[in-house]
């Protein structure tokens, strides 16, 4: 249960280090050239992730531009996270898991009613976290787009079957992202308890920024 992921091999000096509690949102500005490390402290924790350009937040992460540019739906070491204008926002500079998801989107109270039933409508969800964090800077529902799900596993089978399955992460594994422009990072530490993305047990994550 203890965190084993740490600060090893981070480039530069640590300028921010924070534990995000299970189920909570997180928003932070990361400057061009800085590296953000996300540590899955206890394993199998989905980290829902959005990016906005700090200079103009109508430019934001685009899952579609990202997968089209690399011709692959999986985000891996070396993947460039691109904006809706096709520009590089962050680059995955290290990943202890083989790949991450960007087609599964974020859970919401509303989509939970479809996937699991109307009894889940009152459960906390990632879109609630994204909205709460974005609203602190004047963004709202129009600013919600398809996100990254770090440490989440969404394979697509030959007949198109697609589903969130058990994670491929483990305690202490991490992903490193280098900012290619000044960005606003908005995260939901996923509270979902109705599918295997968090092993049915949401846990804390650690966010470290090195400059």
């Amino acid at each position, binding site marked *: 249960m203890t965190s084993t992921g740490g600060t090893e091999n981070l480039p530069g000096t640590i300028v921010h280090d924070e534990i995000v509690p299970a189920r909570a949102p997180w928003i932070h500005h990361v400057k061009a050239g800085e590296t953000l490390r996300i540590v899955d402290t206890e394993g199998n924790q989905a980290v829902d992730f959005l990016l906005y350009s700090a200079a103009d937040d109508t430019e934001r992460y685009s899952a579609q531009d990202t997968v089209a540019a690399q*011709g*692959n*739906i999986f985000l891996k070491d070396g993947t460039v996270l691109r904006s809706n204008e096709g520009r590089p926002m962050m680059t995955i500079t290290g990943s202890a898991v083989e*790949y991450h998801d960007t*087609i599964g*989107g974020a859970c919401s109270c509303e989509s939970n009613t479809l*996937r699991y039933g109307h009894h889940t409508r009152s459960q906390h969800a990632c879109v609630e976290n994204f909205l709460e964090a974005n609203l602190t800077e004047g963004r709202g*529902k129009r600013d919600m787009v398809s*996100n990254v799900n770090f440490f989440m596993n969404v394979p697509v089978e030959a007949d198109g*079957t697609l589903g969130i399955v058990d994670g491929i992460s483990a305690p202490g594994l991490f992903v490193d992202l280098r900012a290619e422009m000044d960005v606003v990072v908005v995260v939901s530490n996923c509270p979902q308890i109705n599918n295997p993305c968090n092993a049915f047990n949401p846990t804390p994550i650690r966010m470290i920024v090195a400059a």
Partner: protein
Amino acid sequence: MSDRLADPMAARDHARAMAGTVVEAMAKLPPQADDLPDGVRATDLVWEETVAAGGYTSRLLKRGTRLRLIDRDGDACAALMIFNADMPTERLNVADTVKVQWNAYLEAGRLLLSDMGRVLMSITADDSTTHDAFCGTSNAATNAAKYGEGRNSGVFPNGRDRLLIGAAKHGLQRRDVHPCINLFKGTRIETDGSITPLVGPYEPGRTIVLRAEMDVIVVMANVPHVLDPREEYSVTPLRVTAWRGEVTPESDPVRNATPEGQRAFLNVEDYYRR
């Protein structure tokens, strides 16, 4: 000619002399189509338009309206955005569309879901099956890299900028241009995650019919798929037809095909319970 340019009445005559000009890409007003399906009355036709290669269009459609798209010459690609007309902050969510239906591919019987757990449109007929929910459309940078330029004012307009203008006609802004789907040009996802584009060209006349399950604004750009491997800007006109139809009844087979879809319709029916 200078005499005419100096004379407003001559300019008026010149302008009025254009009346009745017919071009390939235009709307028919009032709409007229000689190939409506059996049982559809001509008086229920609401939209008949041919969208140019590289063009765009947008329109508000009432709940129950059928939207028929025809890949007239076999090389159209319709990048489609959908908004709830009453509340455009509710829009197509491509991630929920594939995740909730447990499938990556769009075909007859599938639903196009909003970010509010409701079905905006359903696919009631489709003989093409090559569609794409993953790649989105081109942008200024991709078209500049591929075709040398991609401006709205140029000859190789990019999809994102076309959708921006189409959305702006309904009061929407840059932040409203959401992830889109592509109709008629498809992708296949391989087991290693790689994306194989399926761009044809195909036989002319492939058809998809969508049913509006809510009052919606549709915005479409007809531009080459962003992963189209051909060097030239390759796209042909898109034919758009729409007619009024009944709101989906509780007995509808598409409504009841899956428990997830049934709940999406329950949410729509609840939304209109006013």
